[in-house]
């Protein structure tokens, strides 16, 4: 490996005497403060809406818009009758690099479907959000498009999502933070 030597510009006289630079820094900070204070107050009064205040997003009151392709909390898609589309082929369970998908298969009473999951759990505490499970699924049965990001729990077991929670992400809707559209 070659070493790259960095040459810094030598400080000039005004920089070296220090005090003017301190004053300049204070000025920059105060200017932003005054501007943001003014525009935020104006926003509160319903004025100057076209001007953006600080770039900081006021999470959790405000949520940044997500990119379409962002991978978020999993869900299982449903057939028309509400049963899972998943046929328990175990592709996702096999491909998952974190080994955090746990499926148990059983017979489906309809011989044209044949196989269905008896249970389907994902341990989101272990998931690395790689999205392989979505990519590998031959039935479009699993997606990561719920836009749910704030997954938290007081216990490891709480990070364990069963089939019901995966099929019905909307049930947890009231605690969700969703971007304003």
């Amino acid at each position, binding site marked *: 490996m070659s070493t790259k030597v960095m040459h810094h510009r030598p400080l000039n006289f005004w920089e070296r005497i220090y005090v003017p630079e301190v004053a300049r820094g204070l000025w920059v900070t105060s200017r932003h403060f005054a501007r943001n204070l003014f525009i935020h107050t104006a926003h509160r009064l319903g004025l100057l809406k076209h001007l953006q205040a600080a770039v900081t997003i006021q999470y959790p009151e405000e949520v940044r818009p997500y990119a379409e392709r962002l991978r978020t909390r999993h869900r299982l898609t449903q057939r028309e009758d509400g049963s899972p589309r998943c046929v328990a082929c175990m592709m996702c369970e096999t491909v998952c690099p974190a080994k955090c998908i*746990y499926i148990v298969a059983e017979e489906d009473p309809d011989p044209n479907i*044949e196989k269905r999951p008896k249970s389907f759990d994902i341990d989101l505490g272990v998931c690395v959000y790689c999205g392989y499970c979505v990519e590998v699924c031959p039935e479009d049965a699993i997606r990561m498009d719920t836009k749910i990001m704030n997954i938290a729990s007081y216990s490891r077991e709480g990070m364990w999502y069963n089939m019901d929670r995966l099929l019905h992400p909307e049930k947890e809707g009231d605690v969700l933070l969703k971007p304003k559209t």
Partner: protein
Amino acid sequence: MPTLTIDGKTITVEPGTNLIQAAEKLGIAIPYYCYHPGLSIAGNCRICLVKMEKSPKPIIACQTLCQEGMVVDASSPEVGKLRQAVLEFLLINHPLDCPVCDQAGECWLQDYYMEFGLYDPKFNEQKVKKHFKATPIGPTVTLDSERCILCSRCVRFTDEISKTHELGIFDRGDHSEIGIYPGKELRNNYSGNVVDICPVGALTDRDFRFKCRVWYLTSTDSICPGCSNGCNIQIHVNRERPHHAKGERVMRLKPRYNAEVNQWWMCDAGRYGYKFIDKDRILIPERREGSLFKEEEWEKLLGSLASSIAALFERYEQNALGICLSPQLSNEDLFMAKKFFEEQLGLPQITVLSPSPEGDQDDFLIKSDKNPNTRGALALGLSKVSFEEIIQRIQKGKIKGLYLFGQDLLALLGESKAKEIFGKLELIIFQGSNQNATSKLAHVVLPSATYAEKDGTFTNHAGRVQRFWKALEPLGQSLPDGEILRRLASEMGTLLEFETPEAIFEDLAQSIAAFRGLSYASLGQEGKLLPDGGKVVARAVRHEKEDSRE
């Protein structure tokens, strides 16, 4: 002996060899579906097409016998094209079932598609729907006739091997369909084999159905302990995903080819007889106090057992402990028992008692002796007395302690007689892998490992010594029988120091005449006959028979 050339390589073969077999000898794999070395030739799937010089058309390799001077092209791109076309034809009515199909991962359609297929399907018509979708056609097999490629292997199996004639091909053209004769079901002693030979997912195993994906399985070579035939098998274990079948580890057994023993087949009783490995196991060493069982550490329990046995010898005499060894034990375990009970403790009351009565037999694989190692026990000369004698001595109050190896005396003698006998005993030791009515009445319960959890050898009915390998760790705290005896021996102040089953077998082969010259290396994958051709043993068997007649 014809000499021919395949893909530029020359080979001389026995007359009657077909092109697939000849190519295999040269390391050239010609694909096939309908051909099976154990069945007659049907020549209907056409995937084995090859080109031959001077032949105007491609020929099928399975039905073409090698002739002098043949020049065969088995692997060129043109031949690949032929196979691609055949595959597309075979798959015309095939459903896209791989995600729900148990065969996926070991399916010959998938394999050959990846090797020769990879085409853009040109078939736009409606697929023909067949009648049987996920339909059980017997106690063991499920049929999906849409997945069938009509290779007729299963039909030939029921005609030629099981000779039960349940299956047939019905209707014509692309409505042809595998089916079962009216009023019949696929119910015979060998029905599970049709699942093995079906190259696709048309016939799947009801027992294995949806339990586990095949790519999670690891396979270990073993010997079926279901009867004295000693069929060569593979144990398929799911180590990776314990949640799949409620923690059961063994998912299925498959037959393993051995020309001298079972060829490609095994019986259903053996195939589905693996459940005991994960069910109703004894997991922890226990001692009974009154009606309560108390779990104990191995060391502590064996220590106190050693002093109970010593006390028994002191109060009565060496004759007061009866030993019922089991022909379910391996040669190695039995040899350890011989060393310990016979040579070191000098006990005269030793017998070999089968845990199960004689069962059915046929003229193919199934034998009436339901134990894998009766010949081994006889060759080791372990039956000093008969079981009846032991019972009589217990009734006379001469035997006061009984050491059982897995046998359920309540089932063998009937409940009242067994309980009467137990009433006369001061010490009942039960060493076994699974719970039964007798284990619940024993004073000391020692959990032992099953055959799948240890290395060893069995000697089958014909005197063939065959090796089986450890597929799993012993469940719970169970230990191989030989290891339990080794620990008990050291508690009793005698020494049985062997590091491995191989070392035990080495000593066995040196000290027991019937086994002379054998070693794990010489047994290999197929096993070896006892060197004296089993003559000594045959005499022992006769002797034993006379005994039981008396």
